[in-house]
């Protein structure tokens, strides 16, 4: 892995992207022993969910904690996709939820029906964030699978750990599939 790896998760408030970012950061920082910084941007005051969550992962010290040019962009919504695509590195990885994103600005994107996978795997669309996370980690290997599983267990709301692990697994599975395809 390169020195500094920049990940952006973007979508609408309430899609759980802060949680996904936090889990990713925790996986990197606590379970993989790297450094990580996770930030987010909020809607009006603190009430709404974030519209984006960013994670920088590095072996070294992390200075600037925000994305400069993303290595990966995961978007669960059209608006976010339109807005942030141009801040993706040329060779960066774009993952979109094809359920919500119709117009994809590049052909080199992973178009995955994330919400649908979530519904299939757990019966709950709300786990799309974790499916996305599994997908992202599976595709990039930015953290180890063990680490992200441990982080999910630690940070998922009480009682939903199994559910979320299932979602995560679904993501990983899909990633394997795609990698084979690609």
């Amino acid at each position: 892995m390169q020195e500094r790896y920049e990940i952006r998760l973007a979508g609408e408030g309430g899609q759980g992207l802060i949680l996904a970012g936090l889990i990713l950061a925790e996986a990197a920082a606590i379970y993989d022993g790297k450094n990580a910084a996770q930030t987010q941007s909020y809607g009006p005051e603190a009430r709404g969910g974030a519209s984006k969550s960013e994670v920088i992962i590095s072996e070294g010290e992390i200075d600037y904690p925000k994305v400069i040019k993303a290595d990966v962009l995961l978007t669960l919504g059209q608006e976010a996709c339109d807005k942030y695509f141009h801040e993706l590195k040329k060779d960066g990885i774009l993952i979109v939820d094809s359920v919500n994103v119709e117009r994809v600005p590049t052909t080199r994107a992973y178009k995955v029906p994330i919400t649908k996978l979530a519904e299939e795997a757990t019966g709950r669309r709300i786990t799309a964030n974790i499916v996305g996370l599994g997908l992202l980690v599976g595709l990039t290997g930015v953290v180890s699978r063990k680490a992200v599983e441990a982080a999910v267990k630690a940070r998922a709301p009480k009682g939903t750990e199994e559910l979320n692990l299932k979602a995560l697994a679904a993501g990983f599975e899909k990633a394997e599939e795609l990698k084979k395809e690609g």
Partner: protein
Amino acid sequence: MAVKLMQGNEACAEGAIAAGCRFFAGYPITPATGIAEALARRLPQVGGKFIQMEDEIASIAAVIGASVGGAKAMTATSGPGFSLMQENIGYAAMAEIPCVIVDVQRGGPSTGLPTAPSQGDVMQSRWGTHGDHPIIVLSPSSVAETFHLTVQAFNFSEKYRTPVILLMDEVIAHMREKVELPSAEMIEVTERISTDVPAEWYFPYDEAASDVPPMVSFGEGYRYHITGLMHDRAGFPTLRLDEINPWLTRVFRKIERGLGEIIMVEEEWTKGARTVVVAYGCTVRSARHAVRMAQGKRYKVGLVKLLTLWPFAEEVIEQVARTARRIIVPELNRGQLALEVERVAGRNKVRRVNRADGEMLTPQQILAAIEEK
């Protein structure tokens, strides 16, 4: 030593607990609410007390009251609430009551940009209340530093009997980073200087023994008077010049004498640097990134990180100004601490890099200033 992924706000709360804080009064406000929420949960666990007051004025008042009762006490707010607290911050300075006030800066003025970062309250933290008064202001640039500076804020506050302001910003408050929480034994905690002289001999503002007279809590058998009026050594109001002037002198002197430890600065690569970036808070992060980029391009550039904003690190900046040809001061405001840098280093040496629109300064913006001829 526990390793955790934490937000700055949580680190602040944990730092407070570690420093011995046992009372918090506050009023919710973005982006400082996380501190209150963490302490609402944590304080009663350690036998401390949390109260949500009716507003920020009452919050700082309750904090001072609790401190008079002997508790290490803190409040946390953001710009609008910080403005409301100013009158009573002056009271704490005047009556020399230790307490810690956290201001998590957000975009201003007014309600401004409640969820966006800013460093717009730097001058306010020094000059926000009426009348001259001593103050200490610390500003962390990482989650880990937030933990340590919170402990330090309490230590200075208790040691110097003065309000201390921890000036955070939205980035540091909400960012999650790895923190290595030291175990309790490893944390140096300063306790208030008390006394056991007979009550009749006790003068809460007596300068005979020390610039920081011992402070006894209410209820401990030393019945004395506290006021926001100018007062004599016993704490009673006075209009006598021969009582006012010694007080004024002492209360500033007590901080001046401590400057050696109070002023915390970290210099990186400043030796021989032609250009030095002076930064604090979250902007340190952009600045260090930029400095490293510039070094990659073979610029001789150093970084001065100010952990203490006030009192201002005059000597360090003077020193730097002696050798560096240019000093760059990036800030998330329209140039506040830059005024002091200009005053000390000379105006023509200083280049400001500012933005106040709710976004962080990017490394690129600072790099551009470094590269400018």
